[in-house]
């Protein structure tokens, strides 16, 4: 399975906020088990999508020179379940960015209704330290995720409100 939990960025405002979309197809693997006959997206994966949205927002500030790893979710409040067929909108707003960390406020909505609201804390690791701790593979920015951001740049001229 490819570990990518957003389909596309809709907006990207450098150092401020990002908006991404995630379509919940019934063909997603996790719906087979979660749950048979009642396909709801696991809350942890919604948070992962918000973390990918927010992590790219944070990493892009320093041009991805440092690794951004999800450090902590201080709180998350789920309002309702997200069912197969829904389209989730992930909004991430950068609360702070420091040399060693960043935090975002995240909201996932569907058709304007709040699904979950959360705060996510990221730790910045320099390249050598992150490889020591996690190995070369295990962090937010795979090439694939960066390509997702490339797509928003490509569409920048076509999407209102998009600012790269």
């Amino acid at each position, binding site marked *: 399975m490819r570990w990518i939990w957003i389909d596309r960025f809709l907006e990207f405002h450098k150092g401020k906020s990002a908006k991404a979309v995630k379509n919940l197809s019934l063909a997603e693997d996790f719906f087979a088990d979660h749950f048979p006959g009642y396909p709801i997206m696991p809350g942890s994966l919604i948070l992962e999508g918000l973390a990918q949205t927010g992590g790219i927002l944070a990493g892009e500030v320093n041009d991805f020179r440092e690794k951004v790893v999800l*450090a*902590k979710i*201080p709180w998350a409040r789920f309002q309702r379940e997200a069912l197969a067929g829904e389209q989730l909108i992930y909004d991430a707003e950068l*609360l*702070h960015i*420091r*040399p*060693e*960390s960043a*935090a975002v406020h995240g909201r996932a909505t569907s058709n304007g209704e709040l699904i979950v609201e959360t705060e996510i*804390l990221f*730790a910045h690791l320099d390249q050598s330290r992150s490889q020591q701790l996690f190995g070369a593979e295990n962090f937010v920015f795979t090439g694939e995720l960066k390509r997702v951001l490339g797509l928003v740049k490509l569409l920048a001229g076509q999407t209102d409100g998009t600012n790269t």
Partner: protein
Amino acid sequence: MPSQEEIFTKVSATLVEALNVDEEEIKPTSTLQGDLGAESIDFLDIVFRLEREFAIKIPRGELFPESIFQGDPEFVQDGRVTDKGLAELRARMPFADLSNFEKNPEVSAISDLFTVDMITRYIQGKLGQPSPN
């Protein structure tokens, strides 16, 4: 400038948010790791919340120094902090109360220096300084 009590109250509120502890659990003498269950990641969270709460800038490593004793092998001997190491601690963390630690300066006890009181004193010092802007 806010009083020490006002600062303590705000620091407590910050720790309630960052560590998910009850306000009643937080005493000035509480140690962040031992008593309040903070993990290293939580220090990042605490620093950011303190910056926001008090509208101050906390340079990296100033409140919670990283790897103080890695710079010099003479700072620690046989698991104990040497006089030279203590001098380094005093210089790096003038806001920490070393009086108890100095009596038995085992490296393993260093996390006990990180108390609620220590944060309060640090903030007090920060607010007392003229603003860099």
